[in-house]
């Protein structure tokens, strides 16, 4: 076992983990952040996307021990004081989900995308979300939601 200290959604945790524990399993099973889900075995689907030190990563493809001393944000850490993050609100307003399974990962990646490129074109949104698969929506409303969130942040910048 290895002792790790990780800040998850603003709270610090110290735990003993087996080195082979994947970050996603640590988040779900030890910390209880079940909002982050596993959708595949190949690191293709992006459902498990979280932010590690502010950058999006697939938490099924990171070991918990690699996150020792670092900061993780999950989908559960986005809302503040019970108010949805603008990206969560945009997904809600634009019907950007059906079953909702891909949604936590989609939203985390979309937030990262706007951090790197606050005013993406439609093509840049599609490219920036290429590591996230949705089996329901046909992506159309997801792209619309990300564009809407970008527009909203533009208005609040002004």
């Amino acid at each position: 076992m290895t002792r790790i200290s990780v800040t998850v959604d603003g709270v610090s945790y110290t735990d003993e983990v087996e080195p082979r524990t994947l970050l996603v399993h640590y988040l779900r099973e030890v910390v209880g952040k079940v909002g982050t889900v596993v959708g595949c075995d190949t690191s293709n689907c992006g459902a498990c996307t979280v932010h590690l030190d502010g950058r999006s990563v697939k938490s099924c493809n990171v070991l918990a021990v690699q996150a020792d001393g670092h900061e993780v944000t999950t989908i559960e850490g986005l809302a503040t004081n019970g108010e949805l993050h603008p990206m969560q609100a945009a997904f809600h307003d634009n019907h950007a989900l059906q079953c909702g399974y891909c949604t936590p990962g989609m939203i985390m990646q979309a937030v990262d995308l706007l951090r790197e490129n606050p005013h993406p074109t439609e093509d840049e949104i599609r490219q920036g979300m290429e590591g996230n698969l949705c089996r329901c929506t046909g992506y159309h409303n997801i792209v619309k939601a990300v564009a809407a969130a970008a527009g909203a942040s533009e208005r609040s910048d002004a």
Partner: protein
Amino acid sequence: MIPAAFDYVAPTSLDEALSVLAEAGDDAKVLAGGQSLLPILRMRLNAPEKVVDLGRIEALRGVRDGGDHVAIGAMTPYADVLGDALVREHAGLLARAVETVADPQIRHRGTVGGALVHADPAGDVGAPVLALDATMVVVGPGGERTVPAGEFFRDLFETAVGDGELLTEIRIPKHTGWGSAYEKFVRVSHQWSIVAVAATVRVEGGSIAEAKVGLTNMGSTPLRATAVEQALVGSSASALADACAAAADGTNPPSDLNGDADYRRHLVTVLTRRAVQKAMEG
């Protein structure tokens, strides 16, 4: 899926990493960004007793100006290479290829050094590094040595980096003012290259003064299209097709569900022409 159990060490210096590796021998595996190794461990295609994480060795990360070359630390993530001004200005071809690798999440973790040592023939960084005549810095128990990119790739998943050794730096001679393009052919987004071509050219007075062309997934290692490079000298943008027709010479492409070898031999000539054309435009 969950990897088999292993011991984990995260050395904070290169010397420490080398002595851990020397002690562990065959039973150890080096972990860089983990974007190839962790899927392998999860599928239990490999089950090392010890995993040596290079992620805490700061000296292996970052890009610096080496005078006549750009020096990229082996542990520099793709995303940092993409955002780096030195790489963009002096080794544009590498940036063009890196932006096609996988997806943003994987580019935040995966490293250029890890990709080169992993040496997947469909991987996208081998061909540009080969075409740019890079030099690899390899460190082992016996000290440091440099390996030209042309001698680095040995076979499928096999490089000049031996057991107990580490790739520490990739030195890319400055190609300032060269145009470059990476033409990656895939059927769906987020796919590995079926074939890809890395081309960089120096244009003088509207025609090509020097050209360098690297090929992805046209054999068990990245390849240089030397016949094309020679034929391109003196070509103008309107006369590229003839020079690019030789792109498949000396290659040995695989046949698989994405296409047979003949299909790839044809594809590579088309992609070479497109890549060179784009490279001439900037």
